Each structure stands twice: as C-alpha cells, then as structure tokens.
C-alpha cells in the first residue's frame, strides 16, 4: 500500500469539460475525490462513463455520508471504476440539508445503482429522481421511524420497544406485502374484498 498523492488525470479533463460544475477536488489516502454540482451530477457521471479516455464503466458503490457537523452538507458518494483502464475515481455530490435531498438517479447509466440507490434512500432519505422503483429495501415499506443512518436518528430508534411491538402486532395483513405484489394480485382479482376496502380507504399499514 504505497501512498499515492497524485491527482487522477480525470480531474483536469473534467474541469475542461464542465468548468464550474466541478466544485473542487482533493486527494485522501491516495484516492482522488471530485465534487460535482448537484444540478449537473448526472451529466458528469454520464460523461465519465462514456467519454473516450475515461470509460468508468463500472459503478463500484453508491452511498452517502452525513457529517457530525450539522452545518455540513450531506454527500452522495459514487465510487467509479474503469475496468479497461484499471482506474478508480470517487465522485461526490453535496446536498444542502436545508433543501430537499434530491439528486438525479444513475440507474439509466448503471443498472447496479438500482439497489444501491434504494439503500441510500432507505437509510438517508435521499430521493433519487428518475429511479424506476424507489422504495425501501432493508427496512420494510411501512417503516415509520425515519432514516436510520441519519445523525439525528438515535442508535436505538425513535420508537420505544413497546411501541415497536404494538405496531408489529397491529399491522394489517396487507402491510406485509409490497404495493407491487398487491398490484399484481389486484389486477388478477385475487385481493380479498376486506383488504381491497381497506386499501380503498387508504388504510394500508397499521391499525390505528
């Protein structure tokens, strides 16, 4: 593990292509990190994927970081890799916490982003605009306590143990199925009438 301190050659190329949309860059532990503006993040990532000489065709990971300093923006982190060039690059998009947490989805570029973005949505509440199927993945769909990896989320959760148990026991049967499954059953007339009535009243989830 030799400490490489040089900047990835993609950075000057990005600056030449996108100018001010590349906010800043830095090197940490040998990894180059580039900050792209929220408005043009999809263009930047798409260009990195397809431009000759960049070819970041492999999306290693999508995640997010929230800092302990509550003033600091939340960051969406894309770990990119170019398999033909054997090069890595980390692209970050800063999201101001005063505004809505939204960023363009990259599922149209990399299918692998599908579940990774769902997880970031599930854990941080970041909405990936244009994601085909953005719903919770590790927590259940009717989970009501918020976003677990946010810093304002206590380690043991917002609800007491008693409340969590009460909610689990009071759940309607349809709370255990995803809307996708319910929609399939519905279109084939397989939903029991009482369940359909509850759904019509908007009562999916927990009994009050």
């Amino acid at each position, binding site marked *: 593990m030799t400490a490489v301190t040089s900047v990835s050659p993609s950075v000057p190329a990005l600056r030449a292509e996108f100018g001010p949309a590349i906010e800043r860059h830095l090197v940490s532990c*040998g990894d180059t990190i580039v900050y792209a503006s929220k408005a043009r993040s999809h263009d930047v990532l798409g260009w990195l994927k397809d431009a000759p000489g960049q070819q970041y065709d492999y999306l290693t990971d999508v995640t997010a970081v929230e800092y302990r300093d509550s003033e600091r923006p939340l960051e969406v982190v894309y770990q990119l890799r170019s398999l033909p060039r054997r090069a890595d690059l980390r692209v970050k998009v800063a999201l101001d916490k005063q505004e809505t947490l939204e960023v363009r989805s990259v599922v149209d570029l990399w299918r692998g982003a599908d579940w990774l973005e769902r997880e970031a949505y599930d854990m941080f509440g970041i909405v990936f605009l244009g994601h085909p199927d953005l719903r919770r993945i590790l927590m259940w769909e009717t989970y009501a306590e918020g976003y677990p990896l946010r810093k304002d989320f206590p380690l043991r959760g917002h609800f007491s143990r008693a409340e969590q148990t009460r909610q689990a026991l009071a759940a309607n049967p349809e709370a255990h199925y995803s809307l996708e499954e319910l929609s399939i059953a519905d279109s084939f007339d397989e939903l029991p009438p009482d369940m359909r009535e509850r759904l019509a009243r908007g009562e999916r989830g927990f009994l009050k």
Partner: protein
Amino acid sequence: MSLRTVEMALATPGLDREGRPIRVPVGAGRAAPGTYDDDFGAEHMLVNIGPQHPATHGVLRLVLEMEGETVKRCIPHLGYLHSGFEKLGEYRHYNQIIPLTDRTDYLSPMANNVGLALAVEKLMGLQITERCQVLRVIACEMSRIISHLVWLGTTGIDLGAFTPFLWSFQERERIYNLQEMWTGARLTTSLTRVGGLMADIPQGFEAGLREFTRTFPDTLREVDTMFTRNAIWIGRTQGVGVLSAEEATNHSLSGPMLRASGVDYDVRKDRPYLGYETYDFDVPIGEHGDIYDRYRIRLEEMWQANRILEQALDRLAGLAGAPINLDDPRVILPPKSRAMSDMEAMIFHFKQVMEGVKPPAGEAYMGIENPKGELGYYFVSDGTAKPVRWRIRPPSFINLSSLPRMCEGALLADVIAINASVDIVMGEVDR
C-alpha cells in the same frame, strides 16, 4: 406464446384515488382475469419462497409472479437479518468494529477481519510487518476455501446431489479446526487488529495446514469427477441464469459472478494488497456467464487458493519469530505482562483501551477480493476515535441485485439453481 417477460415493470409506491396500487402490472393489458390461453396450462399465480426456506440460503424472500411454470417476474425482499452494523460502527472504536465484520459474511469471517484492518491501515497510512502480511494471506485463502466449499455443498443439495455436500463439509471442518486453533473461535474469529493480528499462529498450526494443503486436492478431484462431466449437473446448470459480460459489468457484479461472464477483474491482481502480486496464482475466467461457469470458477479458485496457501507456508518458514504487530504503541496494545509492570506501557494500554485508535481526518476506500466478490470498506474519519461513516460494500447484496434479471423467463426449478449460483450470505446482504 413468448416465455420472456416484458421489461421489468416499474413500481410506483402509492395508491390512486380509488385506493388501488398505482402500477400497471405485467400482463394486465393482455388478457382479462381468468381468460388465459393455456398453451402451457398457464395459470397465473404468485409463489412466495422464503423467508424460511432452505433453498433461499438464509432469510431471503422471493415473490415470483408465475405463468404456468415460467417466471414472469421475481421480486426479492430483503432486510430480515438487518442489524444496522453500519450505524453501530459509528458508535465504536475502530478495533471494536472488527467483531461486527465477523457477523456480516459469516462464511468467511477471517477475510472480513483482514479487509477491515487493511481499510483502517490505509486510512492511517500504516505499513504492516511482513509476517503479518503472510499470515493475513493465509487467513484470506482459508476463508476462500471454506466459503466456496459451503457454496459447493449447498448448491449440490439444491440441485439434488447430496454426496458432495458431505465431502465439502468434511473438508470445511478441517479448516474450521485450524481456525479454532488459531483464533479460539469457529465463527466469530475477530482475528485482526489495526496494525497487526490478535494472535500469532499456535504450535502445530503450520503442520496442520501443510497436511490440509497436501490432502485437500483429493477432495477437489473427487468433486471434479462427480460434477464436471455429470449429465444431470450439466443439464441443470449450462445455459441457465446467463449474464453477458456487458450486463455483468453494468450490474456491478464482482468476484466469481463477474469473472464467469468473462470479465477479467480480480482485486488481488489488479489492485494488489498484502503482496498478492508476489504470489504465483491464476485467475480463472469463464466465457458463458451461466451457472456452470460459476461452478467451474469456484472450483478452480479453490485449487488456486490451495496453491497460494502452499506458497505462504513456504514464506512463513523463513519468517519464524518475526514480529506480527507494528512497533507502534499508538495502535498496538503493549503485552499484558509489560502493561502490568512498566509505567509507560500501562499508560499506552490505558489510552488505547479508553480512547481507541485515532486515524487522521480523511477518508479511505479499501476493496479486497473476498470469496463472494469485492468486499469494500469505506471509512470517513473526522480525527476522532470513532468513524463518521463506515460503509460496507457488500458483494452478496450487489450480486443478488441481478437475480430478477436472471430469473426472467426461467423455470421455477431454475430459480433455485440461479439463486444458489449467486452465492449469497444474508448476514452480508442485510448487514
């Protein structure tokens, strides 16, 4: 009638004004309910597999939309084993995170430990000792063998072959005995520490491992005889669950799943760590991207892991008595005997136990080639003893995300085979 499903239809969470789920389901526009043509006796139904089902390899739940025996759509449901490890990690010192990694991919705990230690060492810019590197390579390759053996045995069972399961679990038991000898635990090994190891190998370990590497190929040969040219095995696995190289790359697959599709990427070769570039081993690459190629690759990887183990044992003989830990009291605990007798050592001991290892502010991503694929640990530090963010890049989770794609148009029985071929561990998928 086409057996292929249409494009994965898109779910929109929410209900319409009448309270019906919004998404238009597959097939809804094609035939009214109950008026299906029955070329294949195509009865429409939803099949629920899991979460408690042996063929889902843990608490995975698959909801399959079937038409007759053809899968139109597969919807995986995860999270039954979600433990919030990443959140827990933010409340722990770096060395205290190591026990959490045992419990993610619990079929290769030692390799996870190594990955975590390497990530923190990258964050701190530490260079570990040579003997420690060799021992960590041994830990990684032992893990690779036991993980692949579990995969082989359980996949065989899923497809109706019982005997290789017994053979592979017998071999696995021998590694587990060695693992227990070294770490005192069979599953929760917590082998590494930042800057070194929890313990050096005990007496008799080298001889035991040497004996294992000598006799293990016999089992591999038996499995090879039993499976590789077996008509049933070939019939069930060839051409099933195919992913092209482009798809595999685009789905971010890694490890044997990626290489079976013909993409030549192995972290050990392409971003070497622990001195892997100095070992002589081959990386098998598939060409068809089906279950059979994944089997061939995992089998070959066990051969190669055995080769690496032999070379590592040779090196270990030349490093007898060399230190396993860094000589740095900021990261390594002084020996207990010194901590009890020497004032300075006691202070270091106290500071480390109470305050923990403190990496400088910064961030690091470290990927290692785990048996399941690329396991990445991403740390963000603000200079305190607890990470701001600890992210696991889970290879099983990402490999599993290609399951709906592979199951489209497959038969129900193939779903079991395809799911087995991904080689998932739910502890890691759900974390």
